């Protein structure tokens, strides 16, 4: 698969990554090589193979609906880049 510069820019936007203009072409080339390597899997016939989405094969790991203590607010907000009293503060997204 051809990884183009616009595709890299789009993925970077979706992932909120800043890629310096000079780095976009380099990233496109490197990602292209990675994807090409993974594409090798296409050579296998997987028609009758169930997709594996979890390597453990375990099912039904539940917890009971019992409350456990939450964090004190000061601790919960300790790592926030910006906060005001009880809240996290963020730039407004909706106009």
């Amino acid at each position, binding site marked *: 698969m051809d990884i183009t510069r616009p595709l890299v820019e789009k993925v970077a936007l979706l992932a909120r990554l800043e890629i310096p203009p000079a780095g976009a072409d380099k990233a496109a080339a490197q990602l292209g090589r990675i994807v090409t390597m993974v594409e090798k899997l296409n050579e296998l016939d997987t028609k009758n193979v169930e997709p594996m989405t*979890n390597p453990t094969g375990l099912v039904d790991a*539940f917890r009971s609906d019992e*409350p456990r203590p939450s964090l004190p607010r000061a601790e919960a907000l300790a790592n926030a880049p910006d906060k005001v009293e009880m809240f996290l503060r963020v730039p407004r997204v909706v106009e």
Partner: protein
Amino acid sequence: MTPSWETVIGLEVHVQLKTRTKLFCGCVNKYGADPNTLVCPICLGLPGVLPVLNRQAFALAVRAGVALGCDVANLTKFDRKNYYYPDLPKGYQISQYDRPLNRRGRLEIETPSGKKNIGITRIHLEEDAGKLIHPETEGTAGVSFVDLNRAGVPLVEIVSEPDMRSPEEAYAYLTALKEILQYVDVSDCDMEKGSLRCDANVSIRRPGDPKLGVKTEIKNLNSFRAVAKALSYEAARHAQVIESGGKVEQVTLTWDAVAEKTIVLRSKEEAHDYRYFPEPDLVHVQADPAFVAKVREALPERPAARRERYVHELGLPAYDAGVLTGDKELAELFDRLRGEGLAPKIASNWVMKHVLAAMNEKKLHASAFFDKTRRIAEVARKVEAKEVTGQTGGDLFLWILETPESASVDEHVRKQGLAQVSDAGALEAIVKDVIAKSPRIVADIKAGKTTAIQALVGQVMRETKGKANATVARELIEKALH
């Protein structure tokens, strides 16, 4: 809408599940707590934590599926829906993509032209996001506050087929959906508290056209009425756009309830590409047939079935049955009164008259009367047996609400002298007195206006504070005037 257009509507409804804790962590699932106090490393999305599925949330999601006639999947899995938004701490929402828990359900609604089935495409489990607050106070331009108490609260998303053909049908669908989900105790479905939220998709086409028109999606609908209004507005707008030669653009809109119009929702998050992939931190979940069968068996009776039973088995008028089953707790109260030995119609009369009045006046839920049913039934029986008058019965009902269940009705009646007076001897003097004081009414009666007798009966009731046996009083008056 002009008859030359057909409106096509599909609804996406998010419903918060009635669990004690969140979907993947032990934080309490509660509305209205102090901001950011019901959060932990898991729902905050701190690095290195693992989610574990809440068994009760899963059971409730299966129950929702069974109640809405879905095929419940044997095996289901979770997926990450990736997007950045300030109310989503992890940068992704744990949801279900290609293996939803429930598919292919249906919901019956009432329309002016009879019953109609609305298809349900899927019902899947997912976690709620936090809440953004956009303050209007000074110095807050350009910022929002985030409260993450809601982040991780269990939701089911119920996606309908585009089977509705008018805003009225959408309204009926939402009403029926809410009724069922409340009945089976899956959710409170309280729009004001956000435990039920609805997005609406609408398009129009020429009747008979098999192809769907371009749809728009309306968000921020905060009542069922708003849904119906927004859909009417939007369908009319589509018609206008097309009739004037334009094309409907596929956009997301928000409903401005004040201006009563839709507005295009502009968000800086433009590129919608959720890049779903399987959630590697959660294992698959099985809903084996035995478990589903157990959930099905334990399902409370649905409102429509209960209504039918009240009419056909208990002989209640359709009106009574409709009112009683319109509120699950009210129906429960009615059943409890019957359990105390009251005949269906008597029990219904007490609920419809006294209970509803008290609920309205005192802003109570029907469940507030659950521990009063023994004494309410006792009073109802006294009225039936003519030990007390209907009026005294009403007073006793109010007295019951003010007193503990241990307070004896019998004793109260005896002490306060509330027993009905049927003894002619005891009433005769009062009747004589009333007749003497009302020469004009007496003249009317003698002139042939027999309905005026009722006025004299009323006066006897007043004199006896409602305790006189009205039939006996009437007989005595008739005899005296004969």
